[in-house]
């Protein structure tokens, strides 16, 4: 194995050349006011080597007799080039840059200045997301970048998010981007299996992040088979040489629910249930007034007659399951170093209590980033992040133990406690467990320990030619403990149950890259690289379950009388890739960029292990042309076009293999079951992305931005093809089908007012359109994919409201006529496409105001044009079919007498005869999920006081921050943002925090 790898890398060895005669160039760099600038980068044209200025702004660098000029760069300042003459000392002033064009963007295996980028990328800098009260950075970038859609899966502290870059490109394979954290290739998502959700990226402290760069188009092709869904590159902070800087940040605050769904109170609930039962009895020819009440179960359950309904006490379960959850976050950072070594260290502690009872998130974390120059040729760097995260979660299902669900589901007549103070049980309404008891007694805890680290070295073989070797590790170990308390209904059947679930993932990778750059004369600038990468991910699980505990004081497995089940699993995948990138710039006007990757993955069929992923991009810096060069209005104008092929291999590790799995034990002896039918020709889903873009900056960079138009064609879809089950198999994964995504992205930044009072605006918006082109024969796959239609459509009988004459619900049949019983199959299938679950557009809008030491940031974010099932309401608007609590609108708008025009049918216990049940999904249950949300408001004040400067402390900054302040939406459930549906899901909370940060 190791031998093979070293052979794989052997491709990369190159042989060097000799060096020309050298000279020393020295100088000093200051800002426009003459203050020395420390840490500016000085490089000699045509040479790879560079130097940094020291704290006095002085530098010295080695050039040779042929050196023509030096270039000085410093983030936030205009780049400056000085022509060399016979002098050996040069003093220069840098001018503050009004634009971000000199910021570097991390692209595949290299960094480029933003002004030289040929592809479509989006970036977020530390400043934009600092101090946000979120547990993982992916939540913080929501709404900040065009073409990058971020949706929270739920509001659980530390919960997962769904990120879609330029739409959803796959039906059965993964749609999540590849994450590169300081070079470590990571897969997002969740690794936990018992607690509802966790986020593999929650081990990183968002405040350690320097920049997040997203490769959206063909520029991702250098990541080959993992790049189809885009690449998110995270770079953490580095130290700068000079005096050691300390930073201390503390913030605290609380979270509360964003919304309370209006529900019935006890008198209304009883009235509705009574009417429902009476209508049922009436229907069967009985006398409703007596029959509904004498029905033994109504009496047994509610023990009230209609004249007494008004006296019934209301128990607000929705209030009972929420709380004000407090949070704290403390961070200490230190950074600094000298000419040889720089470091950045941070430690943080984050505790976040959810607004739902019994839920929290706690993280302790360290980071150490070190960069060291051993000599003029050899550099080392190390990045290490260690974290331990503990989450207490609540069940998020629609079962009795589902805390959020039970909060709205349990009828308001149900008391929380018995007279003796114990939890009242069983609970009426169909979910028997008392959720307050379940939340108080059961344990749902997950502890995740994670190491993300890399160790790399860069060796300058000859000037302009470097070799970089880096080894990366992402190691995660999760232990989840679940305990079903013997005092709960679920636990009483087996005297308590404990589960311990261990999940371990070792994800290591290496990159070996040779970099070369050369400027031949003023006109031609070449740079290029070749490299090899290898990734190996091994995941193992081990689970044990035991039952029969002496009492609730024993919660771990050693006390279980019956070892009930044990289970373990192991799976792995490997990936190897060769890549090359060539960049050619002609006269700083025309940039041509090409990449090629040859990738192999263990996941694919034996005939299709390797594939080619090329890309080509061209940029024309129009403002460098003579006809624009002297026009002051235009500061930047760049036209970009790119085309490339990327792959998606996000399928099961052994999807291409015909396998037998060790399941199906019988009589205590193990079994094996054929688990899938393989395909030796299974290969990557292929994305061909075409992008045309324009970057611009005008009026002294007061208005800048980018427009991109793209088309992303996905072919060879990894699709689960249905098989006749007479074969013994239901489906097989094959490359069939095509779809496309296309869209327009707009990103604009403006400085509206400049001066003492400053007002700037950032706006981004994305319009998206998708179409399924081919499903390999059938014109439909399930009920979400139809040829010629957008992805993830909603296919249901459309709701026609309530028949004013009878109070019964109507749907439109296949011919558009109202019917009680819409057919769901055959020629007269009433179902049609009533919308799509994917937004048609989304965007973000940020305004920043500053005056003297005060800064206010207001950030809106939203999505438009998608529908979502209101799955909670599905249970709560059955008009008495379920005797669960009902929404207030279901009660208030219920049909009561002939002639009532409404959308809420008459109450009816059970299903009306010859009628589609209200407890079955139809178009009635879907709602528009468009929303605009005031996502974040932050107010910061920098305390300028002589006291602090005398004490040697930088000006402290105090800040107030609020998130999810309000939402404008037509959606009537908890949260329109949650992916899929919010059934029983933990809604997001409104968080208010206050903090202070010191630098010294």
């Amino acid at each position, binding site marked *: *194995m190791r031998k*093979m790898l070293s*052979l*794989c*890398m*052997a*491709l990369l060895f190159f042989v060097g050349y000799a060096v020309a005669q050298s000279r020393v160039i020295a100088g000093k760099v200051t800002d426009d006011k003459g203050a020395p600038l420390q840490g500016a980068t000085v490089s000699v044209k045509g040479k790879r080597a560079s130097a940094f200025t020291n704290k006095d702004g002085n530098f010295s660098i080695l050039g040779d007799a042929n050196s023509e000029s030096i270039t000085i760069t410093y983030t936030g300042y205009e780049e400056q080039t000085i022509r060399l003459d016979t002098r050996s000392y040069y003093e220069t002033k840098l001018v503050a840059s009004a634009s971000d064009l000199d910021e570097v963007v991390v692209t595949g295996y290299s960094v480029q200045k933003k002004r030289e980028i040929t592809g479509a990328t989006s970036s977020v800098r530390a400043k934009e997301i600092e101090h946000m009260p979120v547990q993982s950075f992916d939540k913080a970038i929501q709404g900040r970048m065009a073409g990058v859609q971020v949706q929270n899966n739920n509001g659980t502290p530390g919960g997962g998010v769904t990120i879609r870059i330029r739409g959803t490109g796959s039906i059965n394979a993964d749609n999540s981007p590849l994450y590169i954290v300081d070079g470590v290739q990571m897969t997002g998502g969740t690794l936990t299996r018992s607690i509802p959700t966790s986020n593999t990226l929650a081990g990183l402290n968002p405040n350690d992040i320097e920049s997040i760069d997203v490769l959206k188009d063909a520029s991702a092709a250098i990541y080959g088979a993992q790049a189809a869904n885009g690449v998110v590159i995270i770079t953490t902070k580095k130290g700068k040489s000079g005096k050691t800087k300390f930073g201390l940040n503390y913030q605290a605050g609380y979270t509360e629910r964003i919304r309370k769904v209006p529900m019935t109170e006890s008198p209304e609930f009883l009235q509705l249930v009574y009417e429902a039962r009476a209508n049922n009895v009436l229907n069967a020819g009985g006398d409703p007034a007596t029959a509904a009440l004498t029905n*033994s*179960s109504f009496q*047994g*359950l509610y023990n009230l007659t209609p004249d007494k309904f008004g006296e019934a006490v209301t128990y607000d379960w929705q209030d009972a399951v929420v709380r004000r959850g407090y949070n704290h976050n403390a961070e200490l950072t230190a950074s600094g170093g000298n000419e040889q070594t720089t470091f950045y260290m941070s430690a943080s502690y984050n505790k976040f209590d959810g607004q739902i009872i019994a839920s929290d998130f706690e993280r302790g974390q360290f980071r150490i980033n070190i960069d060291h120059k051993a000599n003029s040729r050899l550099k080392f760097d190390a990045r290490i992040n260690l974290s331990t995260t503990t989450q207490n979660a609540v069940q998020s299902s629609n079962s009795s133990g589902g805390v959020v669900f039970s909060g709205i589901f349990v009828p308001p007549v149900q008391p929380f406690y018995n007279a003796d103070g114990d939890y009242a*049980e*069983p609970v009426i309404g169909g979910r*028997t467990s008392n959720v307050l008891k379940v939340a108080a007694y059961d344990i749902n805890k997950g502890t995740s320990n994670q190491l993300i680290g890399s160790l790399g070295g860069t060796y300058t073989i000859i000037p302009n030619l470097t070799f970089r070797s880096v080894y990366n590790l992402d190691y995660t170990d999760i232990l989840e403990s679940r305990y079903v308390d013997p005092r709960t*209904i679920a636990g*009483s*059947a*087996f005297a308590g149950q404990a589960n311990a679930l261990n999940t371990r993932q070792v994800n290591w990778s290496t990159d070996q890259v040779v970099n070369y750059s050369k400027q031949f004369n003023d006109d031609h600038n070449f740079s290029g690289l070749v490299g090899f990468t290898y990734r190996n991910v091994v995941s193992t699980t081990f689970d044990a379950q035991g039952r029969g505990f002496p009492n609730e004081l024993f919660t771990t497995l050693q006390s279980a009388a019956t070892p*009930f*089940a044990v289970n373990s*699993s*192991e*799976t*792995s*995948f490997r990936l*190897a890739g060769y890549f090359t990138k060539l960049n050619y710039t002609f006269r700083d006007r025309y940039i041509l960029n090409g990449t090629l990757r040859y990738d*192999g993955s*263990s996941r694919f069929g034996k005939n299709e*292990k*390797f594939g080619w992923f090329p890309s080509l991009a061209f940029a024309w810096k129009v403002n460098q042309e003579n006809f624009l060069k002297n026009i002051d209005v235009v500061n930047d104008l760049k036209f970009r076009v790119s085309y490339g092929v990327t792959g998606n291999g996000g399928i099961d*590790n*052994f999807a291409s*293999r*015909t*396998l*037998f*799995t*060790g*399941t*199906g*034990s*019988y*009589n*205590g*002896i193990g*079994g*094996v*079951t*054929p688990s899938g*039918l*393989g*395909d030796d020709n299974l290969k990557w889903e292929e994305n061909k992305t075409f992008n045309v873009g324009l970057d611009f900056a005008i009026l002294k960079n007061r208005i800048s931005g980018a427009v991109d138009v793209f088309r992303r064609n996905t072919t060879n879809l990894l699709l689960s093809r*249905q*098989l*006749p*089950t*007479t*074969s*013994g198999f239901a489906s097989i994964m094959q490359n069939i089908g095509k779809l496309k995504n296309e869209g327009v992205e707009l990103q604009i930044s403006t400085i509206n007012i400049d001066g003492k009072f400053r007002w700037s605006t950032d706006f981004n918006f994305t319009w998206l359109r998708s179409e399924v082109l081919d499903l390999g024969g*059938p014109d439909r796959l399930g009920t979400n994919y139809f040829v010629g239609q957008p992805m993830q459509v909603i296919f249901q009988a459309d709701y026609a409201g309530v028949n004013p004459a009878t109070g019964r619900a109507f749907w439109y049949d296949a011919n558009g006529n109202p019917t009680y019983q819409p057919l769901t199959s055959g020629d007269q299938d009433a179902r049609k496409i009533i919308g799509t679950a994917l937004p048609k557009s989304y965007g973000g809008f940020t305004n920043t105001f500053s005056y003297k030491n005060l800064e206010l940031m207001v950030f809106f974010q939203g999505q438009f044009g998608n529908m979502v099932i209101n799955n909670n309401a599905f249970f709560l608007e059955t008009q008495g079919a379920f005797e669960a609590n009902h929404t207030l609108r279901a009660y208030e708008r219920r049909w009561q007498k002939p002639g009532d025009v409404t959308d809420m049918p008459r109450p009816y216990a059970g299903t009306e005869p010859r009628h589609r049940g209200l407890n079955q999904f139809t178009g009635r249950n879907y709602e528009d999920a468009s929303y605009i949300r005031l996502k974040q408001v932050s107010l910061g004040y920098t305390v300028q006081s002589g006291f602090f400067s005398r004490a040697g402390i930088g000006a402290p900054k105090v800040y107030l921050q609020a998130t999810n302040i309000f939402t404008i939406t037509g959606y009537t459930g908890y949260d329109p943002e949650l992916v899929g549906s919010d059934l029983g899901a933990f809604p997001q909370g409104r968080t208010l925090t206050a903090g202070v940060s010191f630098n010294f």
Partner: protein
Amino acid sequence: MKSITKYLSVAVIGGLSLGACNKAIQTEPVQSIDANIALTKSSGVNSLVNSVYAAYRGIVTSNVLWPELLADNLINTINNNNTYRNQELNNQGFGTGNWTTNYSIINRTNLIIDAVDQGAITDVTEARAKLYKGEALFLRAWSYFSLITSYSYQPGKEVSGWTEGVPLILTPTKSVVDVSYPTRNTNAEVYAQIKSDLTEAIALLDNTSRGEKSYVSKAAAQALLSRVHLYLDEWNEVIPVSTEVLNTGTINGKLTRVETTGTGLVQHWRTFKDKSESIFELTFTTAENLGTGSLQAWTTIFPKPVNATCTGNPTRASFADLHIPTSLLNLYDATDIRLTTLVEGPYCKLGQNNLYFTNKYSGTGGTFGLDNVTILRTSEILLNRAEAYARTNQLTEALADVNVIRVRAGSPAIDATVTQTQLIEAILLERRLELAFEGHRWFDLIRLKQDIPKAEGSLASGSLLYTDYRLLSAIPTADIDINDNLKQNPGY
């Protein structure tokens, strides 16, 4: 020249490394094994056989309870979970059929038969190979029998000449090229295959090798064949094969007999494993316990209420969704042990009083949800033979058989003066009483071309006619959609 050598060596190393990388990205599954090696070892084949039993265990509720509920032996407890309400109401799409599971089982049995026939198993004795094949043939026949009784009429008993059977797949799907889009064979062809599989299984199997009744034996194959002949009205074939089963004595080393006392009968239902009347049973170990999905959870109250009054809504581990209709309770003699001991009640649930439940599935050894389900038992075979004797007018023999069942339960023996018709009626009634809640009722009514009477409280319209389309299950829509050769049953 020097540089050419340099580039050449780079190219050579590069080429080598590309080849090596093919190996560097190989992975082998750990929790699974490749199909090419899975069945080359005896242990692999044995494990595959195990997974078939496990698959039957997964559909035990639908095999055992639905045929009772779809007919008139069980009804729903209202205002409860209503999980099986659709079955009780014979709603469209809720038949007895287990299309997907049975074809998955059939593919596994085909793999086993193929492995034996091809001599692919490297470490197996000839005797063991014969057993593998015999067991697989039985299991294949069982699945086809389960399919044909759910999706098709019996030959000669068709409605509107509908003779469609189910597709006969007799070769394994080893790779995607083996996947076919089959048409349905005729019902007669499928029955012929079932009989031929069972006959071959009888020749290959024995009654000694497997050690427990949890695995099929020669007697089990004979017992199933007895049932197949009975369903096909092949009375003269029923008798000898039933007699052979009843004379077996021990199966896999375990005593097997028709109990002759009431205590013996109750003891059968209370035994954990290798029950005395069992010919073949499905075993559940603690780890394989179905818990709240078990027969016990649906058909009994657990823990039992301390009193019979209906106060409040006590918390129970079992759902107690399916109780016994009064119409069935009334058929037992008051002294019948099957009423006094194998039925429990009256209990109440959610305001419904006077509910009676079966306790044939009372949780083995007091462990809730732990079923050990008898699939074939001697009393059924005895009743098969009694009916065949009666149909062929051998009334003395028939009376002797059926009276064993009656007398041991504490009911009066049938008088020797009965006519043939009366005796047949009496045997059929005894069959309902003895085999109630064991998955026979629906199929017995259909094989007799009778309408399905519905118990009180379920269907306002009364019986389900024999000609009603719902007597046959619907083939899953997904299969109809992708296989143009496959005809759906009428009415769906």
